[in-house]
Every structure is written in C-alpha cells, then in structure tokens.
C-alpha cells in the first residue's frame, strides 16, 4: 500500500471546509472549492463526513434535564421575574 500525500489544493480546501459548509465564504472562494471537489473524490468524502458531523450536532438533543428547583430558589426566581415584569410594564 502506497501512502499518498495531500495536494496543496486539498490542504487549502481542508482548511476552509467549515466556512464553506456555513456559506461564509465569498462566491469566488466557493467556486474554487467546488471546482476542486468536482475532481477530488477523497476531498468530497471528507467534506461529507464533516457535513454529517455538523448535522449530528444540530440534531443532538440532550436527555439530561436539570433537577426540580428547590422552594427557596423557585421563590427567588419568581420574585426576580415579577420585578422584571413590573419594571417592563412601568417603562414608557
């Protein structure tokens, strides 16, 4: 098995993939990346795994919830909440 070196363009694309996926790159840079991806299967495969990583993060739903508030903490929060509402009602 022969080890293969990444090309300079592959490295440049690798460095910009998140910004590309986030649509945060200028159109020229996007075009260059897309041109490279069109002819580079390994970069496509890597970009796809990164895209799926982001997708998994977005679908991640925590199962752990905070425990119920104690009586004192609940009373403290409710008081602060009511003061906030009163201040908002009084504001011009």
């Amino acid at each position, binding site marked *: *098995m*022969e*080890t*293969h*070196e*990444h090309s300079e363009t592959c*490295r440049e694309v*690798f*460095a910009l*993939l*998140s*910004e590309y996926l*986030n649509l*945060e790159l200028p159109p020229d840079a996007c075009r260059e990346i897309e041109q490279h991806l069109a002819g580079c*299967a*390994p970069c496509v*495969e*890597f970009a*796809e*795994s*990164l895209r*799926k*990583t*982001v*997708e*998994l*993060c*977005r*679908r*991640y*739903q*925590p*199962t*752990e*919830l*905070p*425990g119920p*508030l104690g009586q004192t*903490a609940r009373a*403290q*929060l409710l008081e*602060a*909440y009511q*003061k*906030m509402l009163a*201040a*908002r009602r009084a*504001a011009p």
Partner: protein
Amino acid sequence: MEHFRAKIFHYSWLMCGQREDAEEVAQETLLKVFESFGHLREPERVRPWVFRIARNECLMKRRKSVFAPAKELSLDQFLPAQDQRDGRVQLQIADWSGLPEDQVLNAELRAELQRAIGELPENYRTVILLRDIEELSTQETAHILDLSDDVVKTRLHRARLAVREKLDGYLGGRGEHHGNA
C-alpha cells in the same frame, strides 16, 4: 422559564462537567437575566445575551475549581491519512455513508457525540456548543465569548474536525473502515 433553564443547564453541564455546577449556573444565570433585563438594549438578541451571562457564570465556577490551561488544536493534526489502492487515492477514514440523516440520534451515537464534545478543550467546546448545538451565528458567538469572528470560525472548524475524528474512530470501530472488508 423552564425552557431557558434547561438550555442553560445543558450548556453549563457540558462546559463545567458537573451536574451540580450546571444547576447552580442555570439558576444564577436566570436570576441575573431577570434582574438586569432592563439593561438589555436589543431585546431581539436575548439568546446571545443569556448565553453570555451563562458563560460568565461558568467562568466563575471554573475559577473556583481546578484550573485547566487552554489547549490549542492544530489544523494538521486532523488531516486524514491517504493511501493509494488499485490506482485510486483513498482516505483512511470510516464509511460515513450509512449514517442516518434524518432520524433522532440513537443512544449510542448520542453518547459518542457527547463524549467527543466533552473531551474538547474548553475554548473549542464552548464554540461548537454555541454554533452547532445552539445554532447561534458567528457574530453572536463572537459577542458572547469576546472573540473576533475569525477566531470563532477557526475554533469552530477545529472543534468540528476533532469531533469528526472521534466519531470516525467510533464508526471505524464498528467495522466500517474503508478497505477493512
């Protein structure tokens, strides 16, 4: 209130690592939100404002506990190895094609993801939590963390690469590595 409390709890739990600390951060954050709501200049930006308060509360907790020095992740450490087989260049990564796109994460995958995020250095973990889990914008995240947009982008990319690599190891461990057949 419970919705926000759960959100803050979860962010704080992944940041502080302790349930008890996260409970306290969530409670303190909500108190500060209610007490200083009148100072909020742009009500449409309430979510970043709440997370900024939560982040500061987490920092306070960290100061009281064991101090973990910031660690930097380099880009090159995540560049996957490649090899050439049958005249074709192939990455030495797992096969991600079977991963379900539109389903609720199963418990095992969710636990792996949670572990991968939890193992990130704190300065990267906070960015991926705000950007990819809470889906706040680059600008909002930069505001919360007192960072430039460019630093947020850099850290997000490296955090994603680190999480991707951990998940790749998990998928590979399930016998889904390319060429392992």
